[in-house]
């Protein structure tokens, strides 16, 4: 078709072109020739001109022809283009139709304008759209059906299922193939089949129906459904089938049941309400009511007017205005409304609170109203009462405040009276108080009354006059005008010009304690409220009055308590001080235990201690025959003491008998104790003992008793600790005391007042005191002589200085034994406590006699030496002089010369003794040691001295048991023995015996020189062997005081020992032990 169109178009155009070109060419040619002819007419044209002109015409014709050719080509292209353009809609239509045929309805042919073809396309388009919509609608419907929540089935006229939806499968469990093709009655029981058949019958007649039916699921479950059934009509209006849509009815049934139950429940609630509840319609007619409302209306409430129920008209009852009706308000405003209705019925007010709520329908219109009526009489009355009380309280509070501000009666009642008058606006008042016996009222405080009047009306007997009556009856008395009141006839109060007055009792908790009076000088009415307030004031005042009394009582009790506390403290102090003086544990415990028993008025008390085996052992008991150390409780017994020790807290058992679980030991079993209490005793953090007390009567030990017991336990603990510490200290103290006592210096310690604390033996002997002067003043220690008195003053000065922390040193003298002057160096030192405070003074008295004695001995020695030298020299010098002077007779010359010689020898002896001593002492002497026979040595010495001894009448004996070797320097040993024998002879009288003995003992050689001479005085023994020292006997003998010094030194250098025993009047024994062998030398004798 396309080609046909194009060809025909081309042919048409070609024809059109020829028709146009040919006339042009012919015309052009004709015109050119005409033009030449014309021009020839004007002017003949040359041939040449004609030729040119001819050429020009030919060229124009050729141009025109070529132009025409180009036009022809253009026409050709234009026809092809136009042809195609004309054919395009046709093609599109064709394509769309083909696409639609393929089932694609989405094709949309283009617009074709207003041409016939456009119309065709439009129609075609509309057709396609409609067809597409239809198809889509159908698919959608199909989807709806499948997506429908509600199950459905489609039946044919034979009631065979032809279709179901997935919801059906879901509800009943049947798959499509299980259901489609089966009669519908297969899915229900017989009963339901009947219903179904009936319904289907109606549908066959063209009606729809909705009905409940129960189907059987695949699992045999009966499922109630609400079935909406409708007939399906054919094109001719005939019924071709039925459709049934089911709604699962199970939930609905359950909901219906719940609703029914809720309704019932609601009803029960409503009925159980004490408040009357009604539902009314717009005409205020009651639709329903709860049982309270029924009761209120005495039954038969339905249909009655709400006013009849809530505000029934009755005689003496005020009607309620309709505008006050809350139900009306609810209907008019559509909001809940509340009103309180007051009824005055037979003299009493009752109140009803009525609350109405609107019940609206879906459109928001108030259809009905619920009205609730509640009796609020009580609440209302209470509110009124509260308001009244508040007012009253404000007044009373004011007064109470005044009352509570002090505990002094006078202050309070004056203030209360003022306050009360101020509050009531009265002119005056008075307070009368009952006496202790409750017989007479006395005026204590008054206002607005003259002193004279008060004096005349100061006392009333109870029962007489108005105040007396008020006190007796405890009833308030008020009068608006006393003058007009017949009860006040002849009352003294009339004289005071009192008009209005109120007497009211001051009521305490139990009894009236007085009467209050307030009055004014003009009449005035007292309202019941006023009376009530005054009554309350009376009560408050009474209470305050009692409080004051109570306070007084408490003050007394407190004082008593304080007293008891003081007593307790005194006791504890006493115990502490008693214990402080005791160091014996048993003694301390006895004291403590007895004090507990006595102070706590207990019948028995004891102190039990845990011993090393964990048993509780008796340490002390108040009074029992139980010996100390008895095991009272074995380890782990159940007793209060164990409980106290283990629990580390006091244990109280007020009733031992009734199942306290406490075992009393055999020792206490017979005593029938009822109450027991025990507290632990600590040593550091450990409880190691318990103190307990027992009572024969039931008693709840008071807190302070336990406290007391604990305090005693603490004191005992401290005391025990102290005793233990004391024991330890004593060892140390014993040592230091021994040191102090052994010192030759006198030591006196005093406290800061100068009272002597200690004095050692040396000090005691210096002061020549026999007994311990502890406590006496240091200044008075020394007495009996001027020196001693001065020394006392010096000690006092020393004390003063030391208290300033200054040391003092003084040299002085005291009078010693037998009046001897004893030089003393006194040193006084302050002794400080650990805080650095001077706590005591220490006086050290050094007896300088010893030092001076040394000095004296030195001089004595010098004197002695000089005597020893000068006396022989005197003889030598004097006699030599006389001989030389020729004054000596011949016969005497020899005696003189012999004397000179003898004295000269003596001199040399002294000199050598001194030199020897110096040499030995200085260690310069070298011993010439050899073995010698001790016996021989003794015999030699004895022989040496026998002439002198004989002369003095003294026997010298030697006894040695055989040869006795001794190692030593023979010269020195002889010197030693000589000195000893010399001494023995010098200090013995005629008839005495000097024994020289030698013996051997334990490798030692003992040489003994024993005499029966004068003996050495005791005082001298200790000084023996000291250089220069000469004993008391020395005065009557000649000696250098060097003998024993020499002996001592010789013994020392021989490594021996010297022992001197002496008894005055009986003799002296000197033993010298010398090693038999020189040290390091072997004992060949054994």
């Amino acid at each position, binding site marked *: 078709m396309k080609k046909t169109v194009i060809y025909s178009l081309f042919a048409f155009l070609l024809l059109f072109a020829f028709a146009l070109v040919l006339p042009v060419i012919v015309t052009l040619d004709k015109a050119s020739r005409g033009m030449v002819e014309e021009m020839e007419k004007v002017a003949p044209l040359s041939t040449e001109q004609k030729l040119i002109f001819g050429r020009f015409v030919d060229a124009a014709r050729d141009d025109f022809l070529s132009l025409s050719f180009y036009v022809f080509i253009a026409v050709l292209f234009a026809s092809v283009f136009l042809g195609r353009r004309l054919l395009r809609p046709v093609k599109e239509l064709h394509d769309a139709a083909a696409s639609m045929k393929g089932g694609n309805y989405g094709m949309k042919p283009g617009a074709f304008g207003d041409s016939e073809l456009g119309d065709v396309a439009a129609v075609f388009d509309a057709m396609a759209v409609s067809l597409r919509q239809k198809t889509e609608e159908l698919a959608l419907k199909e989807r709806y059906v499948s997506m429908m929540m509600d199950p459905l089935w489609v039946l044919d006229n034979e009631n065979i299922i032809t279709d179901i939806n997935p919801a059906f499968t879901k509800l009943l469990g049947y798959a499509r193939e299980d259901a489609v093709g089966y009669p519908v009655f297969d899915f229900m029981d017989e009963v339901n089949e009947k219903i179904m058949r009936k319904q289907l019958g109606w549908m066959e007649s063209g009606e729809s129906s909705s009905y409940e039916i129960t189907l059987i699921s695949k699992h045999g479950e009966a499922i109630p459904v609400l079935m909406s059934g409708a007939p399906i009509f054919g094109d001719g209006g005939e019924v071709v089938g039925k459709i049934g849509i089911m709604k699962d009815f199970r939930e609905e049934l359950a909901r219906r049941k719940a609703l029914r139950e809720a309704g019932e429940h609601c009803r029960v609630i409503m009925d159980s309400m004490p408040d009357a509840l009604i539902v009314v319609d717009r005409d205020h007619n009651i639709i329903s009511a709860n049982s309270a409302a029924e009761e209120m209306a005495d039954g038969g409430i339905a249909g009655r007017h709400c006013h009849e129920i809530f505000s029934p008209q009755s005689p003496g009852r005020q009607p309620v205005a309709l505008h006050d009706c809350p139900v009306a308000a609810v209907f008019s405003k559509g909001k809940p409304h509340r009103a309180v209705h007051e009824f005055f019925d037979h003299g009493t007010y009752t109140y009803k609170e009525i609350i109405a709520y609107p019940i609206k329908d879906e459109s928001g219109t108030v259809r009905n109203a619920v009205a609730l009526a509640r009796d609020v009489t009580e609440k209302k009355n209470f509110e009124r009462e509260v308001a009244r009380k508040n007012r009253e309280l404000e007044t009373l509070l004011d007064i109470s405040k005044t009352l509570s501000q002090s505990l002094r009666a006078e202050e309070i009642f004056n203030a209360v009276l003022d306050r009360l008058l101020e509050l009531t606006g009265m002119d005056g008042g008075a307070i009368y108080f009952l006496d202790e016996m409750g017989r007479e009222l006395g005026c204590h405080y008054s206002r607005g009354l003259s002193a004279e009047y008060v004096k005349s009306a100061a006392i009333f007997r109870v029962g007489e006059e108005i105040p007396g009556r008020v006190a007796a009856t405890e009833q308030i008395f008020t009068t608006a005008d006393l003058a007009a009141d017949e009860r006040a006839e002849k009352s003294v109060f009339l004289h005071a010009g009192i008009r209005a007055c109120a007497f009211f009792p001051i009521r305490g908790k139990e009894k009236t304690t007085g009467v209050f009076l307030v009055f004014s000088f003009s009449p005035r009415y007292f309202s019941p409220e006023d009376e009530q307030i005054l009554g309350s004031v009376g009560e408050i005042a009474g209470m305050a009055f009692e409080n004051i009394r109570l306070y007084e009582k408490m003050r007394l009790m407190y004082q008593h308590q304080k007293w008891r506390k003081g007593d307790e403290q005194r006791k504890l102090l006493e115990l502490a001080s008693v214990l402080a003086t005791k160091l014996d544990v048993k003694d301390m415990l006895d004291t403590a235990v007895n004090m507990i028993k006595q102070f706590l008025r207990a019948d028995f008390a004891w102190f039990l201690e845990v011993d090393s085996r964990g048993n509780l052992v008796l340490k002390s008991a108040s009074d029992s025959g139980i010996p100390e150390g008895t095991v009272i409780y074995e380890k782990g017994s159940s007793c209060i003491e164990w409980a106290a020790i283990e629990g580390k807290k006091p244990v109280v058992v007020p009733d031992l008998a009734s199942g306290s679980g406490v075992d009393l030991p055999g020792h206490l079993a017979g005593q029938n104790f009822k109450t027991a209490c025990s507290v632990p005793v600590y040593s550091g953090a450990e409880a190691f003992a318990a103190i307990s007390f027992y009572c024969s009567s039931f008693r709840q030990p008071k807190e302070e008793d336990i406290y007391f017991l604990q305090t005693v336990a603490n004191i005992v603990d401290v005391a025990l600790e102290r005793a233990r510490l004391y024991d330890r200290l004593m060892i140390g103290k014993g040592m230091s005391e021994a040191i102090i006592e052994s010192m030759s210096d006198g030591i006196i310690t005093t406290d800061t007042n100068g009272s002597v604390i200690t004095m050692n033996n040396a000090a005691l002997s210096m002061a020549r005191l026999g007994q311990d002067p502890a406590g006496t003043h240091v200044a008075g220690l020394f007495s009996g002589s001027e020196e001693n008195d001065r020394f006392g003053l010096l000690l006092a000065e020393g004390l003063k200085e030391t208290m300033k922390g200054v040391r003092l040193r003084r040299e002085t003298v005291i009078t010693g034994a037998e009046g001897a002057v004893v030089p003393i160096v006194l040193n006084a030192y302050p002794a400080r406590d650990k805080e650095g405070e001077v706590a005591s003074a220490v006086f050290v008295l050094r007896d300088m006699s010893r030092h001076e004695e040394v000095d004296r001995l030195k001089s004595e020695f010098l*004197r002695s030496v000089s005597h020893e030298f000068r006396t022989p020299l005197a003889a030598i010098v004097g006699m030599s002089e006389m001989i030389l002077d020729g*004054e000596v007779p011949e016969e005497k010359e020899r005696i003189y010369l012999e004397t000179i010689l003898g004295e000269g020898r003596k001199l040399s002896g002294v000199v050598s003794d001194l030199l020897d001593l110096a040499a030995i002492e200085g260690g310069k002497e070298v011993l010439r040691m050899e073995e010698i026979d001790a016996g021989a040595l003794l015999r030699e010495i004895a022989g040496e001295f026998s002439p002198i001894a004989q002369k003095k009448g003294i026997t010298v004996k030697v006894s040695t048991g055989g040869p006795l070797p001794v190692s030593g320097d023979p010269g020195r040993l002889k010197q030693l023995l000589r000195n000893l024998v010399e001494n023995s002879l010098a200090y013995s009288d005629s008839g005495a015996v000097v024994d020289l003995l030698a013996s051997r003992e334990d490798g030692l050689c003992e040489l003994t020189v024993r005499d029966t001479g004068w003996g050495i005085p005791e005082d001298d023994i200790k000084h023996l062997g000291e250089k220069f020292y000469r004993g008391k006997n020395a005065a009557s003998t000649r000696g250098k005081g060097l003998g024993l010094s020499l002996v001592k030194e010789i013994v020392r250098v021989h490594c021996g020992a010297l022992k001197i025993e002496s008894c005055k009047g009986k003799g002296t024994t000197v033993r010298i032990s010398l090693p038999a062998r020189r040290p390091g030398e072997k004992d060949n004798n054994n």
Partner: protein
Amino acid sequence: VKKIIIIDDEPFILMMIEDKLKRAGFRVITHRESVSAVEKVRAERPDLVILDWMMPEISGLEVCRSLKADPELAPIPIIMLTAKSQEDDERLGLSCGVERYVVKPFSPKVLLEYVVDILDRHKKET
């Protein structure tokens, strides 16, 4: 003839002084016991006492004090013989009323001079 008592425990000293004084014409009495010295003086009533200090039992100083304490014997001048040479000893001796203090060893000649001198002076005084 003046009577002189010599009291000393040393026999040689006694002998020597006795010899010297006797030669000088004095009547001399010797006494060796210090204990009975005062009694002896009281009995003899000498014109002069020569007294040794260092004697056993009772020292010459004590004897001197006793003599001076007796009003009858107090006027008798005393010469003290002594080995003591310290100053305070001398002072002590003199304080006791000793007329002369003669330190051992001494020259018998000098002693005699003292005796004569003292007796002369004493004679003048009385």
